[in-house]
């Protein structure tokens, strides 16, 4: 029975990683950049909801909406100010470093506004927990909602990318920016849209992360951000279903590592599994193999 409970805990934790990883992978897939500030956009989203719901006392739905709107705008602003000028830089690493700068900036702004004291986040969901086998197994409402939200997002994103014009433009940009431009696609607008979607996903992830694990500090996003990045790579970065599978697997491995090997070594185990997987599948579980030509 405890095995099942661990599995469920792993899926709970993994679903949060998966949700964050979706945003990561979305931005990476199109813009080909590791957005290290993604975790901090999550934190901004959570703080927005916290302010709207707990400080101002407005209904949760409004809080989530406010977070999505604010993060979308923030994502576009960051892209415009910090990333766009470097898009044609001679090394892709330049924009990676600016992303780190943005990450520091967001953390420190939040620290100045909200202080370092942890806030307790009230779950935006009012669904109860599911109890099975006389309460021996417990599935929290947050887990169920997070997984559903993940699935909805995956379906919507896939439909959007494959069926709409803007989505096709994104695919084209991700394949070849130059060629896409020649075909009349507005590359800048497409990448801005990618960041807008990625940041909106981050807002949702932030709200659900803090609903499931309700402490909120300016550094709340950074470690889940890194873990989700690992999850995205695990599943094959750029692949949307890969991010989901990677996230869930990562959560399960982390919890099983804690439960059956050593609670001190949970992260060591996660990273070790990641290394082993990448050695055998160098582009992650669902990543595309790229043929290199001379």
């Amino acid at each position, binding site marked *: 029975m*405890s095995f099942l*409970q*661990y599995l469920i*805990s792993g899926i*709970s*934790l993994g679903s949060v990683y998966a949700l964050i990883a979706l945003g990561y992978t979305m931005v990476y897939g199109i813009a080909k950049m590791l957005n290290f500030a993604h975790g901090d956009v999550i934190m901004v989203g959570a703080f927005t909801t*916290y302010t709207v719901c*707990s400080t101002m006392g407005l209904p949760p739905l409004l809080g989530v909406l406010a977070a999505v709107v604010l993060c979308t705008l923030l994502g576009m602003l960051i892209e415009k100010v910090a990333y766009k000028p470097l898009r044609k830089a001679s090394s892709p690493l330049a924009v990676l470093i600016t992303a780190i700068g943005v990450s520091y900036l967001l953390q*420190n702004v939040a*620290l100045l506004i909200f*202080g*370092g*004291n*942890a*806030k*307790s*986040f*009230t779950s935006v969901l009012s669904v109860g*927990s599911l109890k099975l086998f006389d*309460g021996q197994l*417990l599935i*929290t409402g947050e887990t169920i909602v997070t997984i559903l939200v993940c699935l909805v997002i995956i379906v919507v994103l896939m439909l959007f990318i494959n069926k709409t014009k803007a989505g096709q433009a994104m695919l084209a940009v991700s394949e070849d920016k130059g060629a896409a431009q020649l075909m009349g696609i507005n590359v800048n607008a497409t990448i801005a849209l990618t960041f807008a979607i990625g940041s909106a996903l981050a807002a949702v992830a932030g709200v659900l992360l803090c609903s499931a*694990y*309700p*402490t909120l*500090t*300016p*550094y709340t996003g950074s*470690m*889940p951000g890194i873990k989700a990045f690992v999850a995205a790579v695990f599943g094959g970065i750029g692949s949307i279903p890969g991010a989901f599978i990677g996230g869930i697997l990562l959560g399960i491995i*982390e*919890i099983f590592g*804690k*439960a059956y090997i*050593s*609670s*001190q070594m*949970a*992260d060591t185990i996660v990273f070790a599994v990641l290394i082993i997987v990448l050695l055998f599948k160098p582009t992650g579980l669902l990543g595309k193999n790229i043929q290199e030509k001379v």
Partner: protein
Amino acid sequence: MKKMKKLLSVVVASAMVLAMAGCGNNGDGGSAGNSSAAGTGGSSASGDVFKIGGIGPLTGEAAIYGVNVRNAAQIAVDEINAAGGANGYMLELNFQDDEHDAEKAVNAYNSLKDWGAQVILGAVTSTPCIAVTEETMKDNMFQLTPSGSAVDCAKYDNNFRVCFSDPDQGAASAQYIGEHALAQKVAVIYDSSTVYSSGIYESFVKGAESQSFEIVCAEAFTADSKTDFSVQLQKAKDAGAELVFLPIYYQEASLILQQAAAADYAPLFFGVDGMDGILGVANFDTSLAEGVMLLTPFAADAQDEMTQKFVSTYVEKFGDTPNQFAADAYDGVYAIKAAIEQSGATPGMSVSDLCEAMKTGITSITLDGLTGAGITWDASGNPGKAPKAVKIEGGVYVAM
């Protein structure tokens, strides 16, 4: 392109050299950010104020501890100055950020030295504090850490502390649980990546050997995975633990309480001083903490006049409830004042002479502070005070 870079690097390099030289020339106070020197007015020339240098994390994940110490120390300094100072001399506080990093703490200490600090209040966290003790020992500067609880934070004879040391807390907790027969089966959940938590855990295990209860499960977590505690709680539950000992800080403890409640697991929770502050977590459902016991020398909502006055001043000034660290810092500043008065020290003394005077001064004072009545210090640097056990009932601490 290349020439451009070459030129740029030469320009930057020479700018750096100039900056360094500039830094050197006005080393006396140039780099010190003096915004915190409130209460001293403009009247004091160096020589008639005691300059207290504070070190602690103001940014980064540990910022909350440093900020509490800085704010509370400032309150104490303002109060003392308003009441006529120490020995008739004003106190001045300059608090520097160490980002909870040993190297940055030494930098902070050096910049305080440039400012002219005579006494060090800090560092707030253990590892940076140990790094600073080495430096204050070399300079023979008096150092009092409010909250550096690792044994080595009071390694040299010029180091003192306000809080309990880690082994003391672990042993005291084990003793309390054993003597009051709170439980037969005890589980421990601790943070193996912090010095504080792992230190208390080890001394708790040692202390438990001579007690009647049994530690049935000891599970760790690390700074990198401190959101999900379901496994640790499940293991404690499976082992049949009636009491879970939590030698950790309140942020993680609040998550553990929430997750335990969600899993319908309701053992007795027992914390140490790091748990204090749990009721102050903004928006926290305090009913979850109902029945939690903790050994702590300070409780923000204790009813005595001194605590109430301190808490209300703090809330009014900084809009936040102070925690354990704040109380330690407040007492720390008053201990410095008392030591100065006891030894008849003057700001004109050299750093080393002042340290010698205060070293003997502090061992002969008795301080009635927020964190205990009749606190004394011995030459080892540890405070003599009794931990109080409190229980959370109806959202407030009740003495047991």
